[in-house]
């Protein structure tokens, strides 16, 4: 039979083990990211990479490049077609200080209603802090080194995508073909789970479609669409969509 003090010792022992376990649990998540903040930031950025580039030579893709983003007035990167909502936010004085970025990344579609960024949000506050810190380090502080689209075209075609890019696409034909696209990729440029392609630069558009053809990107719906498009049709679509303005 156990007496009272033995019970108390047992309980104390259990408590100690419990606390140690709790300590391991909290430190282990940081320990798992024995991960430097840099590595963590890069890992977190991988969900942004489909649409954004950052660092030396970064270019606009579906989303603007993020060089010089910290402190920048919203919607002002040269050569990128922002949604009206984003431009107006900038005109009203929104600048991307860390606090604003934090609110935006938590729930982009709530922070700036009507913007085109097709991203549900990063719920974890610590993650957001890590990511923003990483962005600040990695983004070249000289505002936007925008690569000139035209300069890209002046070299011999070295891939199928380049062949199509060298073609003059017919935007009227593209408009007809786009009927197939706008059921999912909204013509307004709004994005609700399917990325916006309105105003997408031609070279990015063509390269993306070829990445579906060659299985670099995987999406069955897109693969089906692209496998049924001839080169002139891809050129026409690229011409059409690059001329559109998002609303």
């Amino acid at each position, binding site marked *: 039979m156990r007496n009272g003090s033995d019970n108390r010792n047992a309980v104390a022992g259990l408590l100690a083990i419990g606390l140690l376990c709790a300590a391991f649990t909290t430190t282990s998540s940081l320990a798992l990211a024995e991960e430097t903040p840099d590595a963590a930031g890069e890992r977190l950025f991988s969900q942004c990479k489909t649409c954004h580039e950052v660092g030396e030579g970064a270019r606009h893709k579906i989303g603007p490049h993020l060089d010089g983003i910290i402190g920048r007035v919203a919607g002002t990167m040269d050569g990128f077609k922002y949604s009206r909502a984003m431009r107006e936010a900038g005109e009203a004085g929104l600048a991307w200080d860390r606090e604003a970025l934090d609110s935006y990344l938590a729930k982009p579609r709530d922070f700036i209603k009507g913007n085109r960024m097709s991203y549900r949000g990063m719920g974890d506050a610590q993650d957001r802090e890590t990511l923003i810190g990483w962005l600040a380090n990695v983004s070249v502080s000289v505002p936007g080194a925008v690569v000139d689209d035209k300069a890209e075209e002046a070299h011999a075609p070295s891939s199928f995508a380049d062949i199509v890019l060298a073609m003059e696409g017919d935007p009227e034909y593209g408009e007809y073909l786009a009927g197939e696209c706008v*059921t*999912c990729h*909204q*013509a307004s440029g709004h994005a609700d789970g399917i990325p916006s392609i309105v105003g997408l630069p031609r070279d990015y558009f063509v390269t993306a479609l070829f990445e579906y053809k060659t299985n670099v990107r995987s999406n069955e719906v897109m693969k089906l669409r692209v496998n049924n498009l001839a080169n002139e049709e891809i050129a026409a679509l690229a011409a059409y969509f690059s001329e559109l303005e998002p609303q």
Partner: protein
Amino acid sequence: MTRITRRRLGLLMGASAATFAMPTYLRAQDKPKVVVIGGGAGGATAARYLAKDSEGAIDVTLIDDSDQFTTCFFSNLYLGGYRDFGSITHSYDKLQSDYGITKVTGMAVGVDRDAKTVRMADGATIPYDRLVVSPGIDLIWDSVEGYSEEAAMIAPHAWKAGPQTQLLKEKLDAIGNGQQIVMVAPPNPYRCPPGPYERVSMMAHVLKSKGVDAKIIVLDPKDKFSKQGLFEEGWAKYYPGMIEWYGPTVHGGIESVDVEAGTVETGLDTFKGDLLNIIPAQKAGMIAAEAGLTNDSGFCPIDAASMRSTEDDSIFVIGDASIAGAMPKSGFSANSQAKVAAMNIRGDLIDAKVFPAKYSNTCWSLIESDDGVKVGAQYAPQDGQIASTSSFISQTGEDEETRKATYEESIGWYAGITSDMFG
């Protein structure tokens, strides 16, 4: 007023001198008229594309007996508690204000094909140069003995979205422990092939998430169904023991239903349900038969390259009411066919360029939260039929990320197609 994009405005301003040379058909009273019967995925899309792409050169009238539209697609998600009713219901306001479409709220009851007029229930007649018939489906009540329009108030079909869907939701939410739901699935051809099975999944999800111990029995006149492998995998994974699907070799034939008693009589047995969801056989919306556009199948034959009715050169039939070869009866298909029809009508009326027809369809189904599957194909006219040129379907055993991405894609699609339909 027709909405003009910035690009068009630039072109128009540059071409202002050309307005003096405007062809006769653009002078107000002579504009060619297109009437669209049915304001759903087919009709609303056709009306919008006609108005938008003709840039005001065609007078477009859209007839629907409701002043708003609840989509049948995603209505299962409302049943499942993922969407509210308002979010799947859409207004025709923008089609009127931004595209200059005349919306007539009422029932079209007849078409005089010689005079080229549509007759409304209130006696009004609306003239057309071209008619688009997109009335969806009507239910063949007596295809399940004992079922009727009145019976549907007790045992809803909810195969036309709106009040029926809300009724079904109410009854689903009232199911308690130890109770049973019996669904009678429809025979081919019917609108939305995976629909009944997505519905079963959504019902199971509701019961499971409330901790209600209830079963769902499916009595199917078909021996197999769309995405069967995927649904069965999902049901076994998420709702083990809750769902029983019986094909004809098991139930021996669906004989009759008694909605008051809550029973379905089959060759094998009498099934009792605290909720009966009876989805009968279907045919083209009644106006199609009234107008003489249907054949023995109850649906409308069309020209594969244009969606033009084979019975009348001035009439186009799109969506569920049409016999569209390999294309399933779906909202996506209707939206796709509408664009081909609209293009051909513009070719007829204002000499617009007509490109070769291309059609496509993708159907997404939700099995459980963040677990979505899809099936789809591209189509083109081949030897006088609309044939599939390539296709895909989700695979069993896909990882969570893929299924979640598929679901999120469907959300993007819904936002896209409804803006494509309603502006």
